[in-house]
């Protein structure tokens, strides 16, 4: 019997107005993949990272859909591995030249080679741009790929120069740096024959975010001062002691409030960024709030503290067992002797690596999967009909940029 498939069933009815971005939450599968991947990374001394990064992206991409059509990630782990090997071939001579120049500079003046480290910042920016280009050309929607043009070096020097301005202005220039760099990236981005652009301005970002820049020192000072005054008035502490107490309190307040402010900042940044993206006449909007992200950050902090605690306990246990099995000398001497033995250091290294992998897994679950989910779920696409009959253009590019950045960035355009 023919199953009757009505067009309504296969084509979700386009609502008048914006189309939501749907994220199909398959978190248990993602969690299993990331934990299993961490173990495989341990077994394969890290080589599995190329395949894990690929699997994570595939999962995120195909979980995300617009008007019933999921994104598809077409990159492979093998591509990333070859990209990394090629990057190494490029990097080796650069490293040698850097080393030789460094020696010559140090001969003339102690620590004169430090500025050459800045070159590596430039190099990293180049890699980030090229890595984005790779990820874009591996992204397919409705059988048509995204693609990118533009020179990595053009991006790198812009990025580095603007960073100098950000540092000189204590971060106040950040919105304009982001806007300029996004405009550069987006005008070189395409979906088929639709060209991208970025229309949000630095000033808009500045207006939305300036309160955070002001509030961080504000809260630190206000709370410290209030506590100091309370100390003087209520407990009759001397004013010098109260001042010292306030001074010691300020960094504590900073770290306690950091997740709140960071969540607020990221929410502002995401809303601004998504609202600025254009592909032809297609535009986007995002309504994410700080509270959507804050819980995730606290969960990450909790997990990382737990992992750190367990790691500390494990390392201490190994060291004590090592010291007890050594003979002669005071406990300190035996501890020092033990700390130079392979039989003690190797378990310590394994503990450390295992903890680092677990920490990475936690961050991948909360900061990659969950953050993307929250953002997708609060984002909309306007005027999707403008992307209804797009002609395929552009070709896939190699993964050397990813190799240079060592596939550190899982996600992020």
């Amino acid at each position, binding site marked *: 019997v023919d199953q009757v498939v009505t067009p309504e069933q296969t084509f979700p009815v386009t609502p008048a107005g914006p189309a939501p971005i749907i994220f199909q939450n398959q978190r248990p599968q993602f969690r299993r993949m990331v934990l299993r991947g961490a173990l495989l990374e341990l077994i*394969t001394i890290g080589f599995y990272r190329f395949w894990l990064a690929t699997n994570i992206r595939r999962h995120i991409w*195909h979980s995300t859909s617009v008007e019933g059509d999921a994104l598809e990630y077409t990159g492979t782990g093998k591509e990333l591995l070859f990209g990394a090997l090629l990057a190494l071939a490029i990097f080796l001579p650069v490293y040698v030249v850097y080393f030789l120049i460094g020696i010559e500079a*140090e001969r003339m003046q102690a620590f004169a080679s430090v500025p050459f480290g800045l070159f590596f910042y430039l190099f990293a920016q180049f890699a980030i741009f090229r890595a984005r280009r790779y990820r874009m050309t591996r992204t*397919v929607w409705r059988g048509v790929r995204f693609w990118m043009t533009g020179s990595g070096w053009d991006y790198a020097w812009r990025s580095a120069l603007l960073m100098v301005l950000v540092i000189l202005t204590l971060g106040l220039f950040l919105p304009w740096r982001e806007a300029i760099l996004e405009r550069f990236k987006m005008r070189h981005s395409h979906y088929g024959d639709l060209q991208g652009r970025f229309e949000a301005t630095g000033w808009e970002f500045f207006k939305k975010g300036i309160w955070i820049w002001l509030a961080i020192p504000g809260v630190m000072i206000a709370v410290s001062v209030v506590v100091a005054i309370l100390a003087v008035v209520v407990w009759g502490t001397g004013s010098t002691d109260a001042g010292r107490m306030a001074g010691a309190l300020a960094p504590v307040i900073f770290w306690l409030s950091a997740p709140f402010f960071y969540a607020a900042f990221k929410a502002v940044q995401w809303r601004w960024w998504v609202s600025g993206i254009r592909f032809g006449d297609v535009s986007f909007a995002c309504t994410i709030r700080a509270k959507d992200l804050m819980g995730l950050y606290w969960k990450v902090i909790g997990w990382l503290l737990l992992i750190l605690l367990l790691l500390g306990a494990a390392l201490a246990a190994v060291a004590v067992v090592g010291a007890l099995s050594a003979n002669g000398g005071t406990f300190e001497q035996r501890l020092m002797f033990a700390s*130079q033995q392979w039989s003690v250091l190797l378990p310590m290294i394994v503990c450390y690596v295992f903890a680092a992998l677990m920490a990475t897994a936690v961050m991948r679950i909360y900061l990659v999967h969950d953050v993307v989910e929250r953002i997708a779920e609060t984002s909309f696409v306007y005027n999707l009909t403008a992307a209804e009959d797009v002609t395929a253009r552009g070709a896939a590019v190699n993964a050397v940029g990813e190799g240079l950045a060592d596939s550190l960035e899982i996600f992020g355009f």
Partner: protein
Amino acid sequence: MAQPGEAIYFDGQSNRKRQVEIRFGGALEIVENGQLAEAWPYGDVRRVDSAPGVLRLMCVTTPGLARLEIRDAALQQVIEAHCRALDVAPTRSQTLKVVVYSAAALASFVGLLVYGIPLLADRLAPLLPLSFERRLGDAVDRNVQFIFRDRRCEPTAAGNAALQRLADQLRQASDLAIPFELRVLGTRVENAFALPGGKVYVAHGLLQKAKNPDEVAGVIAHEFGHLQHRDVLRSLIKDGSTGFLLGLLFGDVFGGGAMIAVTRSLLTNSYSRDAERDADRFSVETMHRLGRSPKAMGELLQRIEEPIAGQIPTILLSHPLTKERLATMTQADRPVSGPELLSPTEWAALQNICR
């Protein structure tokens, strides 16, 4: 023959959604408005990622990114039955391949770290011209001068003369082939070290801790041993290439820095233990030729090692005085047969060399 069914087709040329009918003929036929649009051989059809519940297909022999999407579960089963190579490379066997190749890579890395790099350093160091080593040493020297800029030692004329006399005797006895420059650092740290290219530094603290010229002579001869064997250059080659290999291996996936530092210090420790043993032998032989006690240096090091509460002597960090080393020096001890290396006045001048 299986019943045809509905699907969505993207032809890869444009992103237009095309409502098509799937027919199961000699190949997977994609029919639009009664017209055959495309026929995919069953063996060439592959599954690609899609939203849960949606079967998305591609054809490996079709150029471009043409995709076929099937939402109907019954039709999905029919397609799975027809296309035998839907998942041609199961991910599990792929993962196993990665694991096996990684194990091979690990074996080769370990081989390189344990045998390859030390061999490379041993063979390469003598081939590099001394002038290169001196340039390297000059660069390091700048940093030493900077670090100890407040602890300069202005040597007295008498102290300097005593130091040079000691050094000359040691050079003659040891056949040191490398031109050296011996200097005193005005710091209380009890240490001595050799830089690449021939500069040897002795800290004032070490001179003051010593009880007789033989103890100092043994330490200087030990550093001469490092010069003769070009140990700093060798360890530099080892450190550099080990660091590079490890960095390559771990990428930055483990927050690499700490990891690399730990492993590297571990490896260089085992390297330097061999180098220390050789330098000790050099010192012992030199002292024998001078007819003086090789044990004196060991006694000095032992005195330095005696733990000062809450403070680890710096010399221990790079030159751990193992029981084995002390035993070797004690074993090599012979009755004194040569003249005193310095007169009591010269010795006093050396101990107070810094103005």
